[in-house]
């Protein structure tokens, strides 16, 4: 079974959407206080979860017509986008350990993908 490029595109787009979800969860987390309303009525968190759900739809559609061993490692691309957004949108520092860790995690997921062929 070959993996069509369209499936790859669905999964990669899913990781981009998921990374926006993470950014909104982070922003929403900054608006939490001791009251339960700040968790339940937090539109930033709701938007983050909505992005997550949307990304899983993209993932399911992508995986349907492709090989899991090829597509599965791509899910870890979410870490790359998140690293980018945390710097550009949240002003977090990009340090050498963060790059190293994301590199190792990508490599590890590629190995897991190779192992599940």
């Amino acid at each position, binding site marked *: 079974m070959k993996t069509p490029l369209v499936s790859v595109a669905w999964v990669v787009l899913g990781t981009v959407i998921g990374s926006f979800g993470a950014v909104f969860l*982070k922003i*929403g987390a900054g608006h*939490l206080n001791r009251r339960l309303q700040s968790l339940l009525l937090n539109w930033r*968190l709701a938007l983050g979860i909505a992005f997550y759900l949307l990304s899983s739809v993209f993932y399911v559609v992508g995986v349907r017509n492709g090989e899991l061993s090829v597509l599965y490692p791509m899910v*870890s691309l*979410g870490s790359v986008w*998140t690293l980018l957004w945390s710097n550009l949108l949240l002003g*977090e520092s990009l340090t050498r350990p963060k790059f190293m860790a994301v590199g*190792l995690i990508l490599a*590890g997921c590629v190995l897991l993908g190779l192992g599940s062929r």
Partner: protein
Amino acid sequence: MHTVEAPPKSAPPRRQGRAMLAVLLCTFINAASQACIKLGTASLGGHPTMLETALGIVTKPLLFSGYALLGASTVLFVLALRKGDLSLLYPVLTLGYVWVTVLSVVMFHDSMNSFKIAGVAVIIAGVGVLGKASSQ
């Protein structure tokens, strides 16, 4: 003359370490939730319709616990994000895949091979780098 310590720009290191531990717990809960959902899906039968699946999430105990655990881990992740950098905590979630891989070998008798072992080791090393960075 006394030197005044500069205030930390991001969250203090020890707090980030605690946030890191919370996300670690998230990855265990995530893996347990995946296992529940996988086991629960089997109880839905061959080709469930979307409605049957949606009803199953409420009526099938395993599916319900799977999604409840997923919700719990999301809340825990958000609470952890309050105390730590997203760029430090988000990549840790990848560990969930590691536990799922281990669980599928132990519970669903998937094959284990050298690629999987290497992948698990390399991902754990990557998370270890983040863990070290969070405590400095």
